[in-house]
């Protein structure tokens, strides 16, 4: 339980909520004008001095973005695309040590606890500030084993063949409007390659920080886990609170080769003025396992449905989703499992909490392609509603084109009952403590899947979200 672990907790790179809401003066190397058009795309490409194929890719993606309508489902997106800064370069180079990072930016990540977490339990770190990765590290023994952990811009220069082979193959620009937007203006993000048989013991962590007002952050992450290899990648996200909207729209593509394992954990705690519209997808080959652990606590609107495409027999996909929607928030979160081959298996567990007028929606798809015999999938989604003003919806989609399959779906919606609260308060717990305890208990089955450091953090974030929720 939350406070139980408190005594042994330490900073994990996500900091305290009240610590997130601070901002630095803008001392940037370059800041594009507001708005989006071909000129801006050319400017980004010029700044990055990237190959022509990438410039062409961006320009085509911009056309696709312009031609696609806004999604007519999910949440209400009240964004003016011309009122956003699409590219900000905060620093002229990427630091290899923290001392090599501009001081105010270094202080930012210090406050967020990143260097400390790096020392204690991480294999490597990438820190992105606005549009660019300003710091990167990887333990030497891992680079000696051939592990690559760099930003995606550098990867295009340093590993052009590897990038070109996989880039935008899992999520093409035409996939959806926001994937097209990201493809046009992407900057930063992580590139990871884990060679055959290499098991990376400690997590690699990326941290995404937005500082400027009306900012758009469009990182692009590509992870390739080669045969029999293993990796756990973690990302955290925060920003200061502004009255105007900002946009975070990432694309994450993952390839999990035969008998490899990849776990991708997100603890997203964006400020409540941020639209978080992200496309995340993995393909898993024979006997491979892909796990998404997706924690959505922040943002005004999140639309995110991490997907696993199980391409070959024995592949497994697992998605654990936690969403917490409070006042002014809509979490439209979920998952997709696509069975493309026989004997593949998947599981989705979703837990959502809504309070103070927040809205949490589960939106999920289980799809079984013809011929994917003996496939198994199970979906469990539970919603907890803390007060009558809050809302929860479930949108499960099943597309099964094969007879010989086992698919399960369970959903539950509960409210914190007066009787539960009375029981706990009759034992001396305050009403706020009692509610927090019920909520922590509700997400416990997912939190216990997290590494200890992140479980502690998740519980602390839930407690902070719960503060002042009663009376």
């Amino acid at each position: 339980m939350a406070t139980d672990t408190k005594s042994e907790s330490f900073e994990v790179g996500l900091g305290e909520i009240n610590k997130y809401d601070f901002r630095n003066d803008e001392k940037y190397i370059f800041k594009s004008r507001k708005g989006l058009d071909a000129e801006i795309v050319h400017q980004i490409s010029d700044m990055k001095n990237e190959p022509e194929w990438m410039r062409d890719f961006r320009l085509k993606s911009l056309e696709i973005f312009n031609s696609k309508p806004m999604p007519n489902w999910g949440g209400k997106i009240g964004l003016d695309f011309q009122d956003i800064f699409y590219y900000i370069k905060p620093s002229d180079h990427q630091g290899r040590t923290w001392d090599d990072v501009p001081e105010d930016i270094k202080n930012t990540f210090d406050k967020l606890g990143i260097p400390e977490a790096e020392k204690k339990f991480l294999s490597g770190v990438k820190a992105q500030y606005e549009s660019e990765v300003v710091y990167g590290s990887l333990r030497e023994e891992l680079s000696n084993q051939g592990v690559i952990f760099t930003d995606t811009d550098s990867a295009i220069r340093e590993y052009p063949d590897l990038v070109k082979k996989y880039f935008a193959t899992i999520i093409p620009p035409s996939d959806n409007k926001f994937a097209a937007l990201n493809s046009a203006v992407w900057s930063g993000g992580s590139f990871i390659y884990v060679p055959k048989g290499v098991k990376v013991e400690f997590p690699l962590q990326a941290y995404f920080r937005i500082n400027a007002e009306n900012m758009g952050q469009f990182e692009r992450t590509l992870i390739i886990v080669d045969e029999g290899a293993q990796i756990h990648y973690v990302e955290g996200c925060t920003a200061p609170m502004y009255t105007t909207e900002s946009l975070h729209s990432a694309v994450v593509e993952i390839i999990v080769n035969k008998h490899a394992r990849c776990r991708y954990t997100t603890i997203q705690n964006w400020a409540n003025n941020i639209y978080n519209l992200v496309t995340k997808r993995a393909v898993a080959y024979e006997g491979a396992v892909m796990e998404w652990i997706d924690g959505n606590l922040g943002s005004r609107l999140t639309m995110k449905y991490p997907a696993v495409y199980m391409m070959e027999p024995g592949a497994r996909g697992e998605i654990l989703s936690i969403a917490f929607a409070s006042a002014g928030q809509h979490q439209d979160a979920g998952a997709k499992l696509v069975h493309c081959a026989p004997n593949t298996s998947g599981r989705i567990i979703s837990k959502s909490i809504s309070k103070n007028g927040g809205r949490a929606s589960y939106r999920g798809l289980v799809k079984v392609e013809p011929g994917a015999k003996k496939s198994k999938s199970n979906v469990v989604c539970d919603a907890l509603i803390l007060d009558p003003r809050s809302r929860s919806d479930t949108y499960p989609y099943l597309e099964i084109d094969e007879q010989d399959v086992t698919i399960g779906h369970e959903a539950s919606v509960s409210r914190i009952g007066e009787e539960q609260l009375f029981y706990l308060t009759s034992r001396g717990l305050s009403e706020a403590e009692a509610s927090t305890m019920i909520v922590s208990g509700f997400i416990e089955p997912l939190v216990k899947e997290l590494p200890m450091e992140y479980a502690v953090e998740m519980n602390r974030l839930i407690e902070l979200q719960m503060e002042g929720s009663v009376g």
Partner: protein
Amino acid sequence: MTDTLKIHELHVAVEGKPILKGVNLEIRRGETHALMGPNGSGKSTLGFAIMGHPGYEVTGGTMELNGANVLEMEPNERARAGIFLAFQRPMAIPGVKMADFLRHATTNVRRPDRKEGEELIPMREFRKELKAKMEQLRMDTEFARRYVNDGFSGGEMKRAEILQMAMLRPKFAILDETDSGLDVDAVRLASQSIAEIGGAEMGILIITHHDKLLEHNTPDYTHVMLGGRIVETGGPGHERSGPELAAELHQQGYDRIRAAHPDAAADEEAMKQSDQVEHAF
């Protein structure tokens, strides 16, 4: 001065329906009281009202703990002041381990001024005490790691309530049909445990239909509730002793009581509809 819980002319309504119609009861720490009465007479209502359940509206009367007005206290303040209710039907709290729940509860009750987020009793100290109490109650220590009342059998739930009582060490404990749903052996075990823990330490109010729970907890006083009032009491200064009255009720039922108190019996009839309300909990 002996700690005293004093209830005077207490009137309680549930969803606007009067259930208790002037209950008088005084319990001193160290005494054991039995509260008996037919179904729907208002026994559980008294328990909930003493603990401060928000669904039980006090429409008249007073309740004082050593002179302090209990009616002004929230349930958690009552717990911190030393009042405990062992529930007839405890609530499950999935995902919350007994030990974590109890550590919060125990800390708050022992340090009544504690605010949320302040330190808890040190883990080691707490575990040691919990383990000792569980051994005393002949409970498997695995219990502490299970989720609060989640998937517990009837017997396990009741023992978990007694464990909580043992950890919280209240001044006054109300045991609401702690024997219901238990087999004979389980009742005996519960009865022994209550005696071991409560004994002279607490003022205990045992709400029961039977006299089994009283085997090891000889009541100094036995009260009979009918139609929302305590109509008869056995004990010092009364015609019958506490155990005598309990035994009589257990063996012969409430016909004599009804005949002796026709007004309360008439109220009982009128309240039959309210039965459902009380038993919804």
